[in-house]
């Protein structure tokens, strides 16, 4: 049994207590809701994409330390990146979460996840993977809506 320290790393607790890019974006930013039916978490993700670049992302709503910190770190990891890069980051993150998806590309491995690496410990707590990926799945939906 892995200890809780694998899960609740300091950096995670920091993002949880001081979430970055929290809030809302006005229209025409896209907004998408995400739920984790297991724990009741609900977030709303706002996405501003222009010229194929993720210009801004904000997240509102409530959630546990894992879902909130993951969302916070995610915003940092994607703002300013091209949509193609962001999709690669998403793939990379999901593969770290041990989620098998089609289309992991060879180059994805090179992408650094920065702070997000701290979430690696979540894999040992399978139930929490859904917490960690909530904001990511919501982001995918928002990107799809952005076209």
């Amino acid at each position: 049994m892995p200890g809780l320290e694998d899960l609740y790393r300091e950096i995670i607790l920091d993002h949880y207590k001081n979430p970055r890019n929290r809030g809302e974006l006005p229209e025409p930013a896209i907004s998408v809701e995400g739920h984790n039916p297991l724990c009741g978490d609900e977030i709303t993700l706002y996405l501003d994409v222009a010229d194929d670049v993720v210009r801004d992302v904000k997240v509102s709503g409530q959630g546990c330390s894992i879902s909130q910190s993951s969302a916070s770190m995610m915003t940092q990891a994607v703002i300013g990146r091209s949509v193609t890069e962001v999709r690669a980051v998403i793939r990379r993150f999901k593969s770290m979460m041990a989620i098998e998806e089609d289309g992991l590309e060879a180059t994805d491995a090179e992408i650094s996840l920065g702070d997000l690496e701290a979430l690696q410990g979540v894999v040992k707590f399978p139930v929490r993977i859904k917490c960690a990926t909530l904001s990511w799945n919501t982001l995918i939906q928002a990107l799809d809506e952005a076209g």
Partner: protein
Amino acid sequence: MTPSAVASPDWQRIRSDFPVLRREIDGRPIVYLDSANTSQKPESVIDAMASFMREGYAPINRSAYRLAAAATDAYEGARSKVARFINAARPEEVVFTRNATEALNMVAQSWGRKNLRPGDAVVLSHMEHHANIVPWQMLVDQIGIELRFIPLTDDGLLDLDGLSALLDGARVLSVTAMSNVLGTINPVERLVAAGRAADCMVMIDACQSVPHGITDVQAWGADFVAFSGHKMLGPSGIGVLWGSSEQLELLPPFLGGGNMIDDVRLDGFTCAPVPAKFEAGTPAIVEAVGLGAAVDYLESVGMANIRRHEMGLTRYAIDSLRARYGDDVVIHGTDNVELRGGVLSIAFRDIHPHDLSQVLDESNVCVRAGHHCAKPLMRLLGANATVRASLYLYNDRSDVDALVEGLDGASDIFGL
């Protein structure tokens, strides 16, 4: 409740009847506080099922050889036990379903599609489980009925002041006997009387109440009562719809197939008598046997004793939490244990319930963190989630102590 129930049960012996509770993880016992979700099974239930599969397994109602006749008797015997347990007038009033959810859907669909017209109102409460909300919402889509919700008071009781206004012109009243989030025990007889006075069909979701106290469907006087086997020491895969003979007679069948027919021709079918009419296909035979054994077990302890035991433990839990944490802990619902069962939904020091339950799990304390399939109620409480600790006959003060102790560990990690 039954002659065989003892005046003062040996709760330690009872606890030892549950194999899961004898297990240890990491050298520490399991503290199971999730019985409102699903209950553990005593040896006698596990053995009844295994023995039946080892010695007496056979089809029911179809074949005539002795093994099959005995299996039919075992299945029907379980029906009789359940009927007696809830004081049904006749065994035929007990319909076996997969779970309470199916029972509630069966009534919503079969009764509802026969009797409800666009604009008809169905009255529920704001503390219902999804199983008593979504089936009616499906009828909103299918028929165009209107839903009304009985509001709650600040301490989590049904606010019945406006009930007659809500019932005015309504066709259905369907309410839970006990909240799976707040623990609130609702005044069923009063609700039924109000429903009757308004000419409503009345259904009671008794999922949380049947396992924990005396049930008397005749005294209740509702039209339908639904509950699940797995929350009352029985196996998964079986639930009960009780209906008055009158209502079951009138209710159209829900599923079509074997066992529920009297005759089938290419151009149509006729139905078997109640309750077979509602039990299409091969039923949960082994599970009925297990549920019968669960009823035997509960009766041997005595439902009044169980209620008393849980009332005492609930009091102890509330008092312990408050003594240790004061205002840092919020316990939803009423403090009056006469009006509530052993279900404690709590919030603790801004720590998210999911994180709380994770930390509690480190000390093998099993609680549910989430919305408890009651999202409308959660929104009313202003919480996405709570941690819910729920008690049953096999719990004791050590379980409560472990919960109280465990919360502190969460504070350590989150620095709150």
